[in-house]
């Protein structure tokens, strides 16, 4: 970075070493040389968060958070604000794509053991981000004040009434009244605007924890020396940019050609507290949790199971005791159960879209049972009984097959610096 010799940069950096920090953490930051494309989803999630914040701020300039005007102001954004339809469709589809990206990011972590020591806190901060995202997305979906907004808000806030003794009082407190109404909409709007910035703060912690030990990698072994790592820039900046372009291609495809694919038609009907839609379904990214909630016949236990399905991720680093991180070097049993678990989550999502009756209820209960079985029984037992394959001695050896050229390649970017 030649800019470091600029007198102004030097002057500032001496007093506030922000340029040194940026150089160390964004440019020189040593990264395992063998990251595959599944490692693109972290940066994609960060960029999607930025897209959501920018489009969200623009929407907030036109939106009116009042039960009498919310639906109308949303439609006026679509029709009378210059490119309002574009901003809104980027934002609504962005919500779906944020979850797609983050779910892939999580499953990557599950397969390659990115939650294992010393990255437990990094993983747990990620789970906190997921929880914050879910709250933000839920409250954002309420804002257009369509039928699904209203009834979704009613159903989900009512879950808290399952809490013994104080449940009903809590629900009244959440609503700011005795039903979902204007105070509810107003506080959801306020919190929907606030939460993304809380997410940004936790993302900073997430990155801080990440940079403490650096990225995990497909081999799951620690870097042994400089030959195992490459500077983040230009190698991963360009790889992330290429991934971003492909991601935007898919994202834009939905924004421009199927903008309501992820939405419910009912949400284009203004909220009506006197008319309940035939099926109240949440957005697709909540369907697996919704299936778990409804698989359990008792309301309180259902709510507990639903929250437990996320909270179990917090203790995952202590459930899976295998010293081997990457699924690549674990037994076939780990691989089979990993893919079954992934399929289980997808099936849960499908089940969540249907009323809990007949076959769907049975499938929902089996898949819910398997979900918890995977974390609480299979992974702990597997990590004791399985015999992992031998690990390669170093990243550069496994990637380059000997490590002769490693020194030369690693030296190259250093010359540039």
């Amino acid at each position, binding site marked *: 970075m030649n800019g470091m010799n600029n007198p102004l940069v030097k002057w500032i950096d001496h007093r506030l070493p922000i340029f040194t920090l940026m150089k160390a953490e964004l440019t020189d930051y040593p990264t395992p040389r063998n990251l595959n494309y599944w490692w693109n989803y972290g940066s994609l999630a960060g960029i999607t968060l930025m897209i959501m914040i920018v489009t969200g701020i623009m929407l907030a300039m036109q939106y009116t958070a009042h039960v009498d005007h919310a639906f109308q102001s949303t439609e006026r954004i679509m029709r009378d604000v210059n490119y309002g339809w574009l901003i809104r469709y980027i934002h609504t589809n962005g919500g779906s794509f944020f979850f797609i990206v983050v779910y892939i990011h999580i499953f990557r972590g599950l397969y390659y053991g990115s939650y294992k020591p010393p990255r437990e806190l990094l993983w747990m901060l990620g789970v906190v981000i997921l929880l914050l995202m879910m709250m933000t997305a839920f409250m954002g979906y309420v804002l257009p004040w369509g039928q699904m907004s209203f009834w979704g808000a009613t159903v989900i806030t009512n879950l808290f009434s399952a809490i013994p003794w104080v449940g009903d009082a809590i629900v009244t407190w959440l609503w700011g009244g005795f039903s979902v109404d204007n105070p509810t909409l107003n506080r959801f709007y306020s919190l929907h605007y606030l939460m993304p910035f809380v997410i940004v703060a936790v993302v900073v912690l997430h990155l801080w924890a990440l940079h403490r030990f650096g990225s995990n990698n497909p081999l799951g072994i620690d870097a042994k020396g400089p030959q195992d790592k490459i500077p983040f820039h230009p190698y991963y900046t360009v790889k992330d940019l290429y991934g971003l372009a492909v991601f935007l291609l898919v994202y*834009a495809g939905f924004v421009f050609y199927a903008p309501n694919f992820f939405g419910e038609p009912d949400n284009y009907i203004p909220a009506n507290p006197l008319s309940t839609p035939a099926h109240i379904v949440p957005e697709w990214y909540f369907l697996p949790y919704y299936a778990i909630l409804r698989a359990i016949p008792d309301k309180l236990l259902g709510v507990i199971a639903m929250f437990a399905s996320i909270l179990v991720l917090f203790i995952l680093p202590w459930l899976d005791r295998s010293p081997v991180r990457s699924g690549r070097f674990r037994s076939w049993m780990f691989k089979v159960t990993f893919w079954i678990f992934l399929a289980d989550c997808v099936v849960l999502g499908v089940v969540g879209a249907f009323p809990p009756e007949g076959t769907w209820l049975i499938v929902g209960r089996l898949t819910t049972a398997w979900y918890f079985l995977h974390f609480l029984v299979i992974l702990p037992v597997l990590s004791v009984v399985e015999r992992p394959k031998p690990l390669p001695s170093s990243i550069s050896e496994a990637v380059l097959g000997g490590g002769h050229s490693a020194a030369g390649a690693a030296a190259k970017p250093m010359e540039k610096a």
Partner: protein
Amino acid sequence: MGKIFLTALAAVLGLGIATAKAAEGVEIPSRDWSFTGPFGKFDPAARQRGFQVFKEVCSGCHALEYIAFRNLAELGYNEDEVKAIAAEFTVVDGPDDEGEMFERDGKPSDFWPAPFPNDKAAAAANGGAVPPDLSLITKARKNGHNYLFALLIGYEDPPGDFELLEGLNYNKYFPGHQIAMAAPLSEDAVEYADGTAATVEQMAHDLTTFLAWTAEPEMEARKQMGLKVMIFLVVFSIVLYAVKRKVWAGLH
């Protein structure tokens, strides 16, 4: 492993689609529309005819809250024609300097006047059912444009064993088959200015095209911009892939 997973997924999704169809009852037939597909555009003649059907038939009971007279310029009417259409309506404005509300002719900036002052009045005049606002109707129903067309032509005599409630009408495609709205279209209900024969099917087609436009007036602009964006992103991806290959070449 991936194969097993995909097979399981397909099985589950297939099952899902089958059940969804069973739950909805009659399958909604698909129809060719000028405005579907990535290059689809609204057929301008059909859209204008559809506007005529809306104005002469539907607007007696249904509101069109999100369409202002000025929007009709997009249908191909010039400024004077838009002013003339707006002036056919009387709008309540005010208060004036004396604090009185007054009536005046409609202006292009006015929104399409609602046929009833409120939902209660609409329900009272329509046997207890509120006619829905039509601005967003094709977006507010699953498979909206096909459903709307099917509904408009779906009126028929109920099957022998069907118990139809007093004041309701039998419609093949309406969920539950009992709809409060009587068959809105009949042969030659309107006289088309361009001489097109006003069959029920033709009017249903034209009206659906018009209401697809009221629901998504941005659609043509959206698809046009989409094409440019997609072409840019394809080229951009290829370029970045090449750059990535070049930058990484020394590493492998």
